[in-house]
């Protein structure tokens, strides 16, 4: 019998172009995704050295980070506009497919990859963006790279990578009713810290993970980088196969059934060993809310900010509390917000919007709160509009925008003013992330929706009648 292997090792071995003792491996890249912010200098580098794009057919571009979510025809920010025009000319020059601002396939790069079926099990996928780990939800080996590496992949379709260590994050048992994938990943990071995954590729396993929809799996893998992991993935199963069937870039008909069998065979074998294993009990997890300035600074909704006497890195905690304008030992349910953002590559897919809408339906956003929904892609937006989700949000007092990264990082006009406090479905609560001086609390779409109505954080399970 052959030795049982992890999916990580299986994909890796299939992609090694060159291997030499004491050096990183040269890995072949199956899919390169690019966007406007981290690519211009890479294309410039190609031109300066008279190089070209080796496989434009394996490269796909979109505009997401700084596209406006309203008034797209008239971009006032000159430098933003130039950056997007530069992507367009670069794609034209090198023959790369581009879903520009007005294209029906436009959207956040990590939303459109899966949606189009460019993301597939067993692929190596890179993008000049740390949340590329999202694509790991399909059992792909996907990681974020810097601009020099973008240039390298454009020129050679390969990348030098040290064989990473493997880690199993095992989720034991089932999540309770009303507890989401977002709560699970936040709880994992809160428990194991912001660098538990450094130097590792993480595979998420266990019943609770298996039972998640593809959207939920993407939310989990998306935030792997917030735990420091090089990449995060989940072995493919029937849920994966069902999600991808019929999508634009996957084989169709009988050919799909054949490839689906190959994909399923990639799953980690029973008995395969990892370099490290971490375990978390799903049943103990409550809806989560981050209180501080990194994603591990996060507690259950029934909890409170830490007490300074109990913490290890007192200065960091104090700094975070100060920045966030919170006291120690402050109950999470006492925190009042003035902004709500439902969007980002973590939580802006149709299923996310649908769940948020189910909480909002028939209710009103509390007065004084600015609440926006930014669908992850143009297609998500259309799909939502077809079933009337836009009307539910609009009637409640939300703004309904066009797709993009938007308030997740505030490169366009969607920013939170200094001192503003936001319940956000995004992935980073760093200082200034959503605007200089802005305070970000990371939550699930359901929790964000409930906070919009109540004006403060509440346990969405009580709110939705799941818990008494």
């Amino acid at each position: 019998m052959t030795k049982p292997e992890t999916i990580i090792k299986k994909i890796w071995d299939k992609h090694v172009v060159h291997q030499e003792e004491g050096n990183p491996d040269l890995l072949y890249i199956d899919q390169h995704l690019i966007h406007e912010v981290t690519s211009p200098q890479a294309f410039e580098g190609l031109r300066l050295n008279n190089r070209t794009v080796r496989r434009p057919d394996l490269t796909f571009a979109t505009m997401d980070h700084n596209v406006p979510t309203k008034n797209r025809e008239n971009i006032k920010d000159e430098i933003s506009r130039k950056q997007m025009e530069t992507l367009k000319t670069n794609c034209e020059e090198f023959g790369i497919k581009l879903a520009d601002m007005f294209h029906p396939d436009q959207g956040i790069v990590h939303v459109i990859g899966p949606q189009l079926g460019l993301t597939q099990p067993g692929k190596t996928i890179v993008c000049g963006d740390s949340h590329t780990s999202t694509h790991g939800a399909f059992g792909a080996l996907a990681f974020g790279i810097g601009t020099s590496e973008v240039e390298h992949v454009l020129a050679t379709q390969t990348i030098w990578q040290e064989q990473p260590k493997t880690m199993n994050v095992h989720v034991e048992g089932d999540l309770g009713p009303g507890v989401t994938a977002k709560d699970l990943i936040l709880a994992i990071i809160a428990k194991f810290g912001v660098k538990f995954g450094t130097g590792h590729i993480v595979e998420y396993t266990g019943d609770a993970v298996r039972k998640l929809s593809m959207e939920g799996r993407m939310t989990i893998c998306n935030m792997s980088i917030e735990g420091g992991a090089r990449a995060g993935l989940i072995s493919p199963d029937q849920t994966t196969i069902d999600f991808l069937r019929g999508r634009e870039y996957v084989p169709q008909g009988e050919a799909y059934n054949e490839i689906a069998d190959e994909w399923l065979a990639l799953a980690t074998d029973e008995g395969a060993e990892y370099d490290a294993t971490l375990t978390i009990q799903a049943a103990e997890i409550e809806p989560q809310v981050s209180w501080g300035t990194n994603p591990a600074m996060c507690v259950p909704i029934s909890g409170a900010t830490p007490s300074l006497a109990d913490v290890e890195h007192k200065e960091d905690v104090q700094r975070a509390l100060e920045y966030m304008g919170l006291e120690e030992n402050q109950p999470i349910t006492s925190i009042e917000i003035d902004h709500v953002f439902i969007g980002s590559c973590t939580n802006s897919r149709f299923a996310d919007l649908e769940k948020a809408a189910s909480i909002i339906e028939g209710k009103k956003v509390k007065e004084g709160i600015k609440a926006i929904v930014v669908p992850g892609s143009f297609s998500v937006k259309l799909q939502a509009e077809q079933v009337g989700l836009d009307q539910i949000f609009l009637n409640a007092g939300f703004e309904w925008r066009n797709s993009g990264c938007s308030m997740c990082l505030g490169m366009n006009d969607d920013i939170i003013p200094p001192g503003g406090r936001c319940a956000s479905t995004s992935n980073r609560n760093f200082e200034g992330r959503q605007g200089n001086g802005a305070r970000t609390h990371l939550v699930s779409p359901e929790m964000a929706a409930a906070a919009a109505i109540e004006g403060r954080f509440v346990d969405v399970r009580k709110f939705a009648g799941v818990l008494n």
Partner: protein
Amino acid sequence: MEAIKQHQGLVFPLNRSNIDTDQIIPKQFLKRIERTGFGQFLFFNWRFDDEGNERADFALNEPKYENSTVLIAGENFGCGSSREHAPWALLDYGFKVIIAPSFADIFYNNSLKNGIIPIKMEEVQLNKWMEQAETGRLVLDINLLEQTITDQENLIVPFDIPEYHKEKLINGWDDIALTLLHQEKIEQFENSL
């Protein structure tokens, strides 16, 4: 990339852990399409107040750290976004060496690609230097060939760096040119698909 074998420089101590790339360079400065000119935006929200004036409470603004080229920081330096604008900003500002207990993976790689030496150092020694640089003036001499750091008291501390990274740094080699030496293998691989 410029070759770097040895570097002597003044230390700027930044005693915070988990410094993310959003802090190193905030998003509003990622719109330029060049690789240069990012130094002015380094640590922007820490260096400047809302009116654009230098903040007195951020030590990098103190004259004693002017022209510092070696940064000492807390663990997990460079976490978060993959933006290479972070090492570009550090390099453009003048930093050539960064010493920390640990680095985030992508940042570590991005630094190496730009000729910055990221050095992992255990916390006891690092904290001593951190304190010396905070209270006084610390100059360190980093010898990449020997893999040692020498301080003013002639204390010599060795450090680890993977051999292949070291070789690229000291020669200033361009990764793509090196990879293209394997072009035939890449073609073979593609033909086998």
